């Protein structure tokens, strides 16, 4: 600031002959002020066009009855009252929440155990780590098809293995009580490697002297894991769990490929339901209302999660 004033006063003294300097300083002043906005402008433009605008347009559309090609008919809150009064909606919402809770619990616990096991930096572990990571880089579509094959009730490998130990065939994807759990299994299997790698890297950044101090006190291994490792990696766990919650609430590919929401709507989730209403039944307004519901649900869980857990996270 001071320097600017000096330049400005200097410019006033040297008036006429030095207007060039004055102008330039004003220009550069504006540029300095604008620079951060210019820097983020491209990113904000993309964000605005592909995220913000669609969100507001979706909210707008949710007040209409529209099939994408005919005339738009304003119907106020009817889509919302229809939605809340539809037992299918509550079933779908229940399915989504069930799926999310199961995926997050299994994924976090299993990947934590796996990470603890693979944490030591040996040659075998490095190989095992890359093996565990492979499902993550495989396309979800191929994963879904392969698991569909494994879970086939007549000719699938899983039922064959079960038959060897004398257990009757399980309708992995055709039994309404089992199908959702099969989707959870696929999702956990696919995401495990990624979570494990992230947790391992967090574990390896825990300073060694903490463990040395614990070892001097003859602390048992499980206790140093519980009292040192866990608190130290809690920011990472917090982040991972949040990412998993959001991803699980947005599940689509496995549902679309493996079950199409069936049998008897038992695996229909919010996003798949939106797809059905939007592109199979051509009810864009109702699909938009569902989209708003999804946004609210994700927002709700994220908020709860921050409220409840963020205080328990240890940041250095």
């Amino acid at each position, binding site marked *: 600031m001071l320097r600017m004033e000096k330049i400005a006063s200097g410019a006033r003294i040297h008036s006429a002959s030095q207007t060039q300097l004055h102008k330039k300083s004003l220009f550069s002043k504006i540029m300095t002020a604008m620079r951060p906005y210019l820097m983020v402008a491209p990113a904000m433009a993309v964000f605005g066009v592909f995220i913000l605008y669609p969100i507001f347009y979706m909210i707008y559309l949710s007040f209409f009855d529209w*099939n*994408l*090609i*005919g005339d738009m008919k304003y119907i106020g809150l009817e889509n919302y009252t229809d939605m809340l009064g539809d037992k299918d909606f509550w079933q779908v919402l229940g399915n989504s929440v069930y799926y999310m809770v199961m995926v997050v619990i299994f994924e976090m616990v299993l990947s934590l155990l796996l990470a603890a096991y693979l944490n030591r930096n040996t040659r075998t572990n490095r190989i095992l780590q890359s093996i565990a990571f492979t499902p993550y880089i495989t396309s979800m579509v191929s994963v879904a098809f392969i698991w569909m094959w494994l879970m086939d009730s*007549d*000719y699938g490998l899983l039922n064959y293995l079960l038959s060897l130990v004398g257990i009757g065939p399980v309708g992995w*994807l*055709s*039994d*309404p009580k089992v199908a959702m759990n099969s989707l959870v299994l696929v999702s956990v299997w696919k995401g495990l490697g990624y979570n494990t790698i992230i947790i391992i890297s967090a574990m390896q950044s825990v300073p060694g002297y903490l463990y040395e101090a614990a070892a001097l006190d003859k602390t048992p291994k499980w206790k140093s894991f519980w009292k040192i490792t866990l608190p130290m990696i809690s920011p990472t766990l917090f982040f991972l769990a949040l990412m998993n919650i959001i991803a699980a609430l947005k599940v689509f590919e496995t549902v679309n490929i493996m*079950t*199409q929401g*069936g*049998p*008897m*709507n038992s695996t229909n989730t919010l996003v798949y339901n939106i797809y*059905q209403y939007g*592109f*199979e*039944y*051509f009810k864009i307004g109702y699909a938009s209302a569902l989209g708003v519901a999804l946004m609210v649900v994700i927002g709700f869980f994220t908020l709860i999660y921050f409220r409840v857990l963020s205080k328990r996270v240890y940041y250095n």
Partner: protein
Amino acid sequence: MKGKVITMKRFASICLIAAMMVSMSSCASETSASTSSASSSSSASSSDAESTASATDSSSDNGGDTIELTYWYAWTDKIQENNENLVAKFNETVGAEKGIHVTAEYQGTYDDVHQKLQAAYVAGDTPDVSVMEIGSVGTFARNGVLQPLDEYFERDNIDTSDFFEGLMINCEVDGHYYGLPYLRSTPILYMNTTLLEQAGLDTAGPATWDELADYCRTIKEKTGAYGLSMYSYVWTFEAFMMEQGTSVLNEDETACNIDTDECRYVMHFFQDLINEGVVRCVAGEDSSKVDTDYINQNTAMWMTSTANLTSVLSVAEENGFEVNTCYIPAGETYGVPTGGCNLIMPSSLTDEHKDAAWEFIKWMTATDQSAYASAYTGYVPNSKSAAETETITSLWETTPQFKVALDQLELYGQGRPKTTAYAQVEDELVAMMDACWVNGADVDSTVAETAATINDLLADAN
């Protein structure tokens, strides 16, 4: 050492960029297939517009510039070959003569075609001609997407009575024609006669539902295979309802006939046979299991479209069994819905493109082409004149199974519901069949619940 690290990093980042580009381009490829053609056709149309503006003649005999048309079709394999062959022939003959060139583009399943067509219409970038599953014609026509063809019918004296009556029902919406029947079919009953003979049964097949039940029991007892393998399929369910003398929806499509004795009878009839273990029903999304069942001779009978006849016959030959076909057995009466697709054109085309598109539709559905398509795929010939051609009559001599479908169509073929709510109604029906036939739910309560839901949907749509 440090230099090596940097080059490694640079190498890694180049790999990463390359990978991203590959993945992005592969994502885009599916959509670009549809858009690239659209853009090429639109650029062609603009140059056409200039040239014909000077000619000021809508009839395109002037042999100068050709009009580029895009044509969307569904399905691969024999059906794809049929489409490509016919389009190539059109371009060589009538197209070359009238200055029209058609590019055929594969779009996936019927659902894919409909979704893309909807998006293309909103974006103002439609194909000039497209196939459309007959159940969706009503929805698209009522929203103004489809061009009514009445004036073209009149102009060229199209004899609608030559087409089979059952096939024209879904070409007409609210008193206007919106398409002509192209690749059309009905469901028929396929039988593995090798298994039937083994069970000591008449290979002509069951004629009534009672006989069907007897057949199933005998087959299971004598051969161990299922009598009938089926899946929760709305199309055959429509046939069952027609055979009980009713239909899924009432005539003006304001309510359903699901909560009726007829429907309960249908649901109980199959549920009993399924519980006895002589019929197997799998969930709607497991339809491919019916195919595995008949290929492995795990079932003696199955119901599917006539369009599959060619491939079923070749599968049977490979696996060493004989196949016969017959009508879907009669309940109170015989009756089947028709299926398959019509050819349509969007209402958003320029007049010049409409004229050209009409030439193409007219040619594709004309006698000789229909006979060719029928013989090539197994779809039924769409008109009486096509059924009388040399191509078809000689086919019937070698493979009489083809004739069953056409006889059934001619005598008992009916339309499909046209209401915009039907896509959602279909999902409800599949859920009902899944519940009763796959998961053993109580028929009476499930039927009542489904009926209430469907009636709500229909009330919303009207």
